[in-house]
């Protein structure tokens, strides 16, 4: 998906001036309260008319002030999960869920009620009304309703803030997986850095109505610690899971990795942050980290106060980051041999 937004909107003292282009399917929007995030998604959904500018989704104009184009919301195929659930009070949970689905062209109906119900754990609510649902139940129904409308772009305005952690982290992989499988790109607004890292591959940061950064969730997380170096997400394709005394081992780069993640079918994609790797010059004889790679440094790059270290581990490659001081201390240079320790729980499954 390519989204081009150039738009201004003024509400009294508040002035929003967005001007950015993003490509990718998992975009995050981050910003303090009142910075204009909700206003932005309302403009994208066609609910708020920008004062000027244009909005292009995959090259197709949704709004263009100069060409007098303003596609109405129902023809944008842009679904929106609001900050508050806003369920239809006169419909049952089922009626709410199916509202968008019924209005979606047959050809676009890729996700059905049953898939959603299981994941969101709302099976026993289906025939209830929505007024007396608990906060979290409502939000799950709202999420299901938007997904079932099989949109071309899904906008989510803090959709998970009413959910408890367990549920949240159960829903996130599904949400992301479903969106990936159905090729539904999304824009995800959240205040939670963890959610952001799990959901977004790119983050637009807003402050007082302007985007102030276009970055990765990881970099954002570091940024917010006051650090600037660019982080690196290692993507690992793992195969052949075996249960291995409580952990699961997977084949990767000619060696086996030990993970806490449960096994899955076929080739699975995991991510490993450069943050989650610790390098040792010598073999640490007894270490809690379940993965210890003997690697060769094949590159070093500076990134602010940190150093990025490119490692060759068997046939695989990984990027680790260490404090600049540590890089000196460990005498890391191209060709050095090091041990990289990674905890079994550091791998995050994507999708």
């Amino acid at each position, binding site marked *: 998906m390519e989204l081009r937004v150039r738009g201004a909107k003024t509400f009294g003292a508040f002035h929003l001036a967005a001007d950015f282009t993003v490509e990718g399917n998992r975009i995050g929007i981050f910003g303090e309260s009142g910075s204009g995030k909700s206003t932005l998604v309302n403009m994208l*959904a*066609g*609910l708020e008319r920008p004062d000027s500018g244009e909005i292009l989704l995959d090259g197709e104009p949704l709004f263009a002030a100069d060409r007098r184009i303003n596609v*109405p*919301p*129902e023809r*944008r*195929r*842009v*679904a*929106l999960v*609001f900050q*508050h659930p*806003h369920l*239809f*009070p*006169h*419909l*049952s949970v089922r009626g709410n869920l199916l*509202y*968008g689905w019924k*209005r*979606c062209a047959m050809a676009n109906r890729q996700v059905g009620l049953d898939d959603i119900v299981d994941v969101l754990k709302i099976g026993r609510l289906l025939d*209830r*009304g*929505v*007024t*007396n649902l608990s906060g979290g139940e409502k939000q799950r129904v709202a999420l299901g*309703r*938007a997904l079932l*409308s099989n949109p071309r772009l899904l906008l989510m305005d803090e959709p998970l803030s009413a959910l408890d952690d367990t549920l949240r982290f159960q829903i996130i992989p599904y949400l992301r997986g479903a969106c990936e499988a159905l090729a539904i790109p999304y824009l995800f607004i959240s205040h939670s850095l963890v959610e952001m890292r799990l959901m977004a591959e790119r983050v637009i940061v807003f402050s007082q109505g302007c985007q102030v950064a276009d970055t990765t969730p990881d970099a954002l997380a570091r940024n917010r610690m006051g650090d600037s170096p660019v982080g690196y997400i290692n993507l690992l394709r793992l195969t052949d899971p075996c249960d291995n005394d409580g952990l699961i081992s997977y084949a990767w780069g000619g060696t086996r990795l030990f993970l806490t993640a449960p096994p899955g079918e076929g080739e699975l994609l995991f991510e490993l942050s450069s943050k989650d790797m610790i390098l040792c010059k010598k073999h640490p004889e007894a270490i809690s980290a379940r993965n210890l790679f003997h690697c060769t440094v094949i590159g070093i790059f500076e990134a602010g106060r940190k150093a990025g270290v490119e490692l060759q581990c068997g046939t695989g490659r990984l990027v680790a980051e260490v404090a600049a001081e540590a890089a000196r201390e460990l005498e890391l240079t191209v060709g050095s041999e090091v041990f990289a320790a990674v905890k079994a729980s550091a791998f995050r499954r994507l999708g």
Partner: protein
Amino acid sequence: MFSLTSADIDAIRLSAKVALAATVVSLPFGIAVAYVMSYCSFRGKTFVEVLLNLPLTLPPVVIGYLLLLLLGKKGWVGGLLDAAGIRIIFTWYAAVIASAAVGFPLLVRSIRIAMDSIDGRLIQASRTLGARWSDTLATVILPLSLRGIVAGSSLMFGRSLGEFGATIIVAGNIPGITQTIPLAVYDYVSAPGGEGAALALCLVSAGLSLLVLFFHEYLARRMARRD
């Protein structure tokens, strides 16, 4: 206790028919007008607003005369219909039109109060889920203003049951054809000794509106948000 003459029974049947027809016929227009007034803004809205309230403010007698002028042979509408061989004046259609004219502002106002209190976010939600405005109207706005629609309908039905001034002018007071309950009651109370019969008719009228009220309550309960 009270015995009803066959003319009375005709009047009751006719009143029920007229009130029902007036309500049913006005409903789509009432909803459309309320929708337009609640959700659209256009030039001359104030003028339309005044026009809508006029039938309420004008004495029913005047409305009767105006309708007579409009629907009469020489009137705009009446002339056209006359050419087509249709006569309205002195038929029960005229009673329906009179009732509809008098009750319309009540209907529209009730529906508008309900429509105005619908959360705009729900409408936005339905739009983003792919519903066109007509679809949103049918599946979100109407169900959510059902309380107002039902209340407005029962106001209109009640007002139609009681309508006298306009009806007697456009529909006449012809027993068995256009004599509704209020006209019959008027005839009774203006003759000495007719109080008993008038009371009986009034009770029937109250009973009819009670029926509508129960139906209303029943609907309201059925559509009450479920648990």
